């Protein structure tokens, strides 16, 4: 009994550790005082001002667009590669998947710098496109990671059966293989989206002077002080993701229950 209680306490402490800064940020988003170290009373002002702050809204737009596009392209590229790898001989397979994993295993700073060097060397203007390309690149391994195991589980003979029944290869793929690996593709996409959204280091080196993502904007503000609108925005983002995840979880738990009843 004592053991069980102390275990619960331990789990609770770790969760508090992980969520304490989030709580601080949420509190700061309602702080009337502009200084982050003083409590000046409760206000909704920052939420109102957030929607008038062009700079932040622009950065948000850029961040979301890059996350969406990079996740989309990385999912397409990663999935085609995963399918090709599935039928490859050992050596080329090992070589290609190792290369794909480099951005995931290497230091972010090195990945960011290396791409910056490339873009500058070929005179590619640093900006939205360069950040997008960099994000696509480091997102590919996450897609590969989610899709490859699903592909290994799919039954190749159903695909062959479809061909045998007269289906064209592409049609057979979309009818037979695609539904099987779709959960993997989806989770790869979501993972890529999250990674892109949370990235700072690689955007920092590849963004040039004009483009700001939320992360790079926050970083430039760290010295002079973060605009409280930023706290409001991140609180809104966090809460909406939280609600979304709770809904998904609730629905899948519900579906699970129904399955067991049947």
């Amino acid at each position, binding site marked *: 009994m004592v053991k069980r209680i102390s275990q619960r306490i331990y789990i609770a402490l*770790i969760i508090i550790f992980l969520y304490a800064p*989030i709580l601080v940020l949420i509190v700061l988003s309602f702080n009337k005082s502009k200084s982050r*170290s003083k409590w000046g009373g409760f206000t909704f002002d920052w939420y109102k001002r957030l929607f008038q702050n062009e700079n932040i809204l622009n950065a948000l737009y850029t961040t979301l667009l890059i996350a969406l596009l990079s996740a989309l392209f990385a999912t397409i590229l990663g999935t085609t590669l995963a*399918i090709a790898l599935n039928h490859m001989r050992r050596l080329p397979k090992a070589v290609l998947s190792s*290369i794909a994993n480099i951005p995931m295993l290497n230091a972010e700073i*090195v990945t960011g*710098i290396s791409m910056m060097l490339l873009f500058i060397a070929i005179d590619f203007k640093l900006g939205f496109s360069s950040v997008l390309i960099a994000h696509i690149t480091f997102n590919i391994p996450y897609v590969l*990671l989610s899709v490859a195991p699903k592909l290994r589980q799919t039954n190749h003979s159903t695909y062959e059966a479809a061909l045998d029944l007269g289906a064209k290869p592409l049609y057979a793929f979309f009818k037979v293989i695609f539904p099987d690996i779709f959960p993997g593709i989806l989770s790869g996409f979501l993972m890529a989206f999250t990674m892109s959204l949370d990235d700072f280091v690689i955007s920092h*080196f590849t963004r040039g002077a004009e483009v700001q993502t939320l992360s790079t904007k926050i970083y430039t503000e760290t010295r002079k002080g973060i605009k409280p609108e930023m706290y409001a925005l991140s609180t809104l983002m*966090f809460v909406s993701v939280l609600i979304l995840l709770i809904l998904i979880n609730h629905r899948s738990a519900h579906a699970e229950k129904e399955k067991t009843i049947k």
Partner: protein
Amino acid sequence: MRNKETKRRQKNALLAAPCSLWMIAFIIIPLLMIVYYGLTKREDGSLTLENLKLIADPINRRALWLSLKLSIISTIVCVLLAYPLGLMLRGLKIKSNSFIVLVFMLPMWMNFLLRTLAWLNILENNGILNTILKTLRLPTLHIINTPTAIILGMVYNFLPFMILPIYNTLEKIDENVINAARDLGANGLQTFFKIIFPLSIPGVISGITMVFVPSLTTFVISNILGGSKVLLIGNVIEQQFQKLNNWNSGSGLSLVLMVFILLSMAFVGQDENTGRGAATW
């Protein structure tokens, strides 16, 4: 028949082509650029080892040494925190482990710079932690702008990447395998050291690389929580590029850093599918 096989291979190669070309263009070539800049002189582009030797410079050497020290400490702290947690979470026998993944991934949805900044509020000399300590009439702590603050920041940011792979491998151990060990006469401790721990090593290894590499190479955490007082190798490299505009020396130092990353991976026995994120989702 043979013809068909070749045709299939050709089709497959065609399928692999777009992504492979992309990876050559944006992974391989950029890395070669680092190698090129790292091994050439800034002035005339001639071959040199000067940029690599920069690591021996006292400031850089100290930065690398401190980075290694802090990242090793944070990795160890993460293992020590995460392993018991993994065991406890396994013991809870929650049916959907997606819930547990969720709890530990969710903080990632708040910008990590902001979360790290929030630690300033907590750790500052007049921050939340010290206010609490004062009300409890306990001695206050001076943490901010010290290596301790940076370790804390590293542990905070990367702990989920240690928890999830460890929990995932522990959770997958069949209850009957543990029962079998008990059945064959092993007591609790023997079962842990002979069965549970060995079976969870892949998760621990995956966690170690996922914590160690980003800790070793970070410049953001040290920038925010260390003030300008603590210089890590990541900060040195970043300054070479962003402030001094010296790509050659920055690349040289990056090459040295990559050697350390490769060494650490060889050390923990990195295999194909245990990379960052591998066991996370």
